Every structure is written in C-alpha cells, then in structure tokens.
C-alpha cells in the first residue's frame, strides 16, 4: 500500500517535471504570474508593480495573467525570504522589495534568509534619487549658503533606516553640516506639514515624492545623492564633498541601492530562458507608450535597468571591505 503510494507520487513528479523545467517554460499560456510586493497596497512599490502588471502580459509569450500580491512585513524582508526560499524557479513568481535589502544583507540584519547575488535578477523599474529640500522662506539658496550660515537647520525625519533620516545623518556626521534631526513623524507627508507650519526647516526624501511641493514653491532641493533625475543634475552630490575616502565610501554605499530603485527578481535557479524572456518583456513594457502615459499621469518616472547591471551594483555593495562595512554600520541601521 505504502509502496504504491510512493510510486504514484514518483510517477506524478516525473509527469510534472517537464512542465516546470526549462524546456517549455518560455511560454506562459494559460498561466498566472504573481508579482509579490513587500509592502502594503498603495505605496510607490505597489503602484509600480500594479502598472507593470497591467502592461507586461502582452510582451510575454502566451500572454499570461499577471497579478499583484502584497506581502508586507519586516520592511519587505518577509517577501524577499519568500521569493528566495519558497517560490519555485518557474518564472511564475516575481518579487519586488525594499531597495535597501542589500544593505540589510550587508549589515547582517537578523531574519535575512536570502543572498541577493543569487536571485535571478530581472532588473530595476526605476531609479530613486534622494535630495535634501529646505524651506523657501529661509535665506539659504544653495548648500554652500547653508554651510556658511553657522545656524542649525532642523530636519524632520521618520526614523532610522529611511532616507529621510539616513541621508541627513551622513551629511551631519561626515560633512559636518550643522543639522538637528528630529525623528518620529509617521510619514513623509507629515513632515511636509511640519515644514508648512515651520516646525522643521527641511526634509530629505525621494525627489519624486518632493516634486509636488517643489513645484508649489514650498521647498527647494539643495543637495542630492548619487542617483539623479531630470531637473536635479546640477545639484552638488554628497559624496563628492567628502574630505576623506572613507567618508566618501560610506556615502556611496548608502546611495548605491537607490540606482536600483525598484528591484525585480525571481527565485534563484530560474532558467536563463525565462530570465531572458522576462528581461525583454520588462524592457518593452516600461517603454510602452500607454504605460509611459499612465506613469506620467501618476507622477511616476519609470526607467528600465537590465538585470545584469542591477546585479553588478548589488555585488559591488556586498564586496566592500570589512572595515568600511563596520564604519557604515555605526551610522546606518536597516529599518522602516
């Protein structure tokens, strides 16, 4: 009885094997692809995944269904663990998670059960640049004015691990700018309100999220991190102002993941065929005129970065010498 059962299972496994293997995988006909998002519905990661889910099917062989599943938790470590350990390498599960997870791995955050270099990288759907924006009614026009003023600037922040906190922290610690960081605001829009009522003078954040307020002449950006976008190329870059190579390395490390702003990966061991097909589909979908029009309306700026380039950046971050990493950990904590 027991042996027949085992036999049946073995036979079933054999029958199923060719389907999940690489040979026929290039067609997704009748299948459903799930994009696992490491955050709740409604945020930037989620909105990007949803717009892709609508436009990607037509560029995939067999025009499969593409759905989005939110798997929030531990700042998206949960979702990355799921894609790494549980999802099958059949191309039917795509993961998108916090761009800073590579830093979580670098700093050995507890609970990380993945190796970023082993994911099958599809690429990144956008680059997110961080800027520091200050109130327009303050007398400082540029970063230089600010440094020379000799006055303390009050920065509103959400908390350690977010770019609202980490970016100004490094400006303060490594460039010696006189900043007072007040953290605990529940969201970046709450900081915006604190700026309106002059409780704080400035905030750091992604250029995308600050743009409506820059357009409204409430704040203006004075310094940015490495990743750039149209409109802020001319701003000074934090790491270029560093006086020591060590300071430069730490700032570079913090901003490295921003170039891979919206990472998209599949389970390790996914066949090259599937990876190639998927990369091609992402590249075409992100340049699809309909998607571009929709993204523009939603104030999203999507730009495809191929998987091998993204992987190169990830490997770069993870191959930093130990002393740089140790220094980095003194300042930066992975968190929300």
């Amino acid at each position: 009885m027991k042996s027949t059962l085992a036999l049946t299972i073995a036979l079933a496994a054999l029958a199923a094997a060719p389907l999940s293997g690489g040979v026929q995988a290039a067609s997704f006909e009748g299948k459903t692809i799930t994009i696992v998002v490491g955050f709740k519905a409604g945020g930037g990661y989620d909105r990007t995944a949803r717009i892709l889910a609508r436009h990607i099917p037509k560029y995939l062989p067999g025009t499969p269904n593409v759905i989005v599943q939110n798997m929030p938790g531990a700042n998206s470590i949960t979702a990355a663990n799921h894609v790494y350990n549980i999802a099958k390498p059949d191309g039917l599960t795509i993961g998108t998670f916090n761009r800073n997870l590579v830093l979580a791995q670098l700093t050995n955050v507890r609970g990380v059960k993945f190796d970023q270099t082993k994911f099958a990288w599809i690429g990144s759907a956008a680059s997110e640049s961080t800027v520091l924006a200050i109130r327009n009614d303050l007398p400082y026009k540029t970063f230089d004015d600010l440094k020379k003023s000799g006055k303390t600037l009050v920065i509103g922040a959400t908390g350690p691990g977010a770019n609202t906190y980490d970016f100004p922290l490094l400006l303060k610690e490594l460039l010696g700018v006189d900043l007072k960081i007040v953290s605990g605001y529940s969201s970046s829009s709450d900081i915006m309100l604190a700026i309106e009522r002059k409780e704080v003078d400035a905030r750091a954040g992604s250029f995308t999220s600050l743009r409506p307020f820059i357009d409204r002449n409430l704040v203006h950006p004075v310094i940015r991190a490495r990743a750039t976008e149209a409109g802020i190329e001319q701003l000074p870059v934090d790491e270029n102002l560093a006086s020591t190579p060590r300071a430069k390395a730490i700032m570079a490390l913090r901003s490295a993941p921003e170039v891979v702003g919206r990472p998209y990966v599949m389970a390790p061991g996914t066949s090259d065929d599937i990876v190639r097909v998927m990369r091609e589909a992402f590249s075409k979908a992100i340049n699809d005129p309909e998607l571009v029009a929709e993204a523009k309306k939603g104030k999203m700026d999507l730009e495809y970065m191929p998987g091998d380039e993204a992987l190169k950046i990830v490997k770069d971050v993870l191959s930093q010498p130990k002393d740089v990493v140790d220094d980095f950990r003194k300042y930066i904590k992975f968190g929300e």
Partner: protein
Amino acid sequence: MIDALLEGLFLVLQWKAFAFMLLGIGLGFWVGLLPGLGGVTTLALMLPFIYAMKPVEGFAFLLGMHSVVATTGDITSVLFGIPGEGTTAATILDGHAMAKKGEAGRALGAVLASSLVGALVGALALALAVPIVRPLVLAFGSPELFMIAIVGIAFIASLSAQGGRGMLRGFLAGGLGLLVATVGQDPQAGIARYTFDSLYLWGGLDLVPVLIGIFAIPEIIDLVVRGTSIAGDLPKGRLNQGALEGVKDTFRHFWLTIRCSLIGTFIGIMPGLGGAVAQWLAYGHAAQSARSAEERQGFGKGDVRGVLGPGAANNSKEGGALIPTVAFGVPGSSSMAILLGGFFLLGLVPGPDMLTAHLTVTFSMVWTIVLANIITVVVCFLFLNHLARLTVVRGHFLIPVILVLVFIGSYTSNNHYGDVVLMLFFGAVGYLMVAGGWPRAPFVLGLVLGKIVENNLYISVARYETAWLTRPIVLVLMALAVAVVLYPLLQARRSRSRRAEHG
C-alpha cells in the same frame, strides 16, 4: 462660493458621475460589511480604474465607495460583535450589547441615522472650512497633537467602572494598551522592542487582528456557551419595530450626535491622528454624557448613546480627513493617502489651488459624500429588519460563518499566519478581560493612541525642549484633560451626596 457649491452639485448629478458613484457605493457596501477587507486596500485596488475617468467621475467613484465603508462596517460590529472595519470597533461595546438584548433593529437604526448626521456634519465642515482651513491645521503642531492624545487617554476615566478599583483597572488596562503599542522598531533609535526576533512583530502590531481578537472571540465563546441565538430567547416581536426607534434615539440625543460628529471631524482634520482614534474619543465623550453614576454603568451594556457617538464620529471624520488632503496635499488618514494618488492620476495637484481654481471639484467631493451617505442609509433601511433577524438565528448556524469571517478578516491584514496567531492571542486576552471584569475600551484607547503619544512627545521635546509646555493651545488642552479626568469623580460625589440627602 455659492456658485461653486451649486456647480459642484451639478457635476456630481451628471449621469456618468452619478453612475460611477452608485458603482462605488455598491462596492463599498460589501467591503464595509466584510471584516478585514478594509476600505484602504480596496481604494488602492480600485485606483487603476480611474485612469480613463474625468476628475469628478473618478472622485465620485472613489469617494462614493469610501464614504459607505464606515457606515456598513458598523452594521457588522453591531450584529456580530466583529469589527467590520478597524475604525468601527467602538460601536461593538453598546451596539452588540443591544443586539444581545434583542434590540438589534434599534441599534442598527441608531447607528445608520447617526452615521448620516455625522457624514452631513463632516461634509458641512469641509465646505465651511475652505476659507480657514490652512491656519486651523497649521495651528496644531506636534506638541498640540501630543496633548490631544493625552486628552484621549484622560477619557479612560469615563470609560472605566466607578470607584477607585474601577478607575485603577481602567488606567491599568490603558497602560497595557500603551505598552502593546510599543511593539516593533522604534522610530528614534531603530531598536526592535518586544519583537522576540520575529520578523512579523518587527513592523508593530496591526490593529485589525488585535481588535477582531479582543472583541469577536469573547462574543463567539459566549454564544457557544449560551447555545442560543445572539439575541437569546427573547420574544421576536420587538425586532421589527426597532429601526424607527433607533432613528428617534438619534434625535432624542441630537446634541450628543452633533458633538460627536464634531469630534470626529476635528480628529479627521488633524493629520497623523488616524481614523481609529475618532470613534474611541467619541465613545468616551458619549459615556461622559451619562447624568448619573447609575446611567454610566449602563454603558457597555447596551446604552444607545454608546452607539450614536461612535456611529456619528466614524462618518464625520471622513469629511474632516479630506480637508488636509485637499488643502495641503497631506493626507489625514491612510485612505486619504491613497486618494492623494488618485488626485495625481486625474491630473490635479492638491494644495491651495484646490480652494481657488478647482473649488468646484472640491465641492463636488463634498456633495459626493453627502449623496453617497444618504443613498446608503436609505438602502440600508430597506434591509434593516432582515439584517436584525440574523440575531435570532440559532448560534449553531451562525458560529461557523462568523469564525470563517474572523479568520479571513484577520489574515487579510498582512496575508501572514502571524495575523491569525495574533488574533487568537488577543482573543484569549479579551476573554480573560471580560471574565475578570476588566474594561476593554481603555486598552484599545491606549493601543490606538500609543504611537501618537510617543512620537509627538519625542518630537516636541527634541524640537522645543520644554518651551512647548507653555504654548497656548497646549495649556488649553491640558486643562481639558484634567477636566475630563475629574468630571466623573465629581459626578460620583454629587450623586452620592444626593443619595445621602434622600436616604
């Protein structure tokens, strides 16, 4: 301005916008009824559908849906003791107690009528606030928000049983709630608190599984043990006449309903306080309206005022929450954050322009809230007596359905098994609290306010050191907090001396 007001109405009444609004109402109706499936998630899911719509149509659709969720969420709370939404839990205390007394119809009538009043007050506030909204919102900084939360905590005094022992238990339960709110990574130093190395606990506790556990599980156990229907074996005749009685209750306690609506609107206007706070403050205020110690003891056991207050506040807060969203581009609640995404999709930039150049659109939102609520409440009244009859169905038939809703409802908050474990854990806590005579409302109040208290206190001290303590609004709120704590004590003494006179 009157022109814009009328023009806004006509915009909503165009057949296309109106049809989209009805569609939204239909969706919101179900989303509200089902526990766990929240209005926030649904808004996010519906967002992509508005690409092809005009601004007025898009908002009629989204807001129509959104305005209804709070109303129908209260229905689930009253009938089954399960919060239909995270923001409708306060209605359970007295609403479900009424259902158990066989007054489900009356409770539903009261909750719907007060919801309607609340929505109208909220919408009116939105319309009237247009000229003064910016200075009003800007007057409340982190120190003021902290003090509002303290006033909220002071309400524990009126949510606890009388006497020293009752007060002690109330404030201890509140303290436990504050402690539970600290679970997760702290926003100042990034330290993980009470997470026991679990990734699930890292982000803090989700309100929905906790609320479902603490309120629904004790009710289910109670239903199993009694082996009867929710309304026990009371004569069935009373159920059907109840709804109208509930409406009359709303007008009997009209000023209370209005005051609670104003509380809801105010909480809605303040960004960062969150929707769950509004109902609990309103409940605390309603409990305060008891004229004597004896009356106060009736709260939690089926006093209709405990239904009217939260019912009104829950709907009025939505109109309020739209104010900062529209005027500053800063959302007043998580649903508003998603709605903000909708603004961009529709090509509108929220901010001062919405109060000048796009004023008609803003007013069309006001009208959508008003119309959606009127339609929902009228439709609900048609079903009301049928819904109320669910409380005379035998428990054996109901329990499996309720259990499924309870499990799915908690699981949907993170799609993680941890949600279910959390719900069961707080189910046990809730059961023990009920069995031991500890009040649950102060616990939830502490939980809901915990993060607000902690963060705003930190920001106030970090930014202003001690100077914030002398800000005028802070002082006023401080006096208010003291008054709120002392009021029930004074009242108890007065009723005692009165009794002494008579005795």
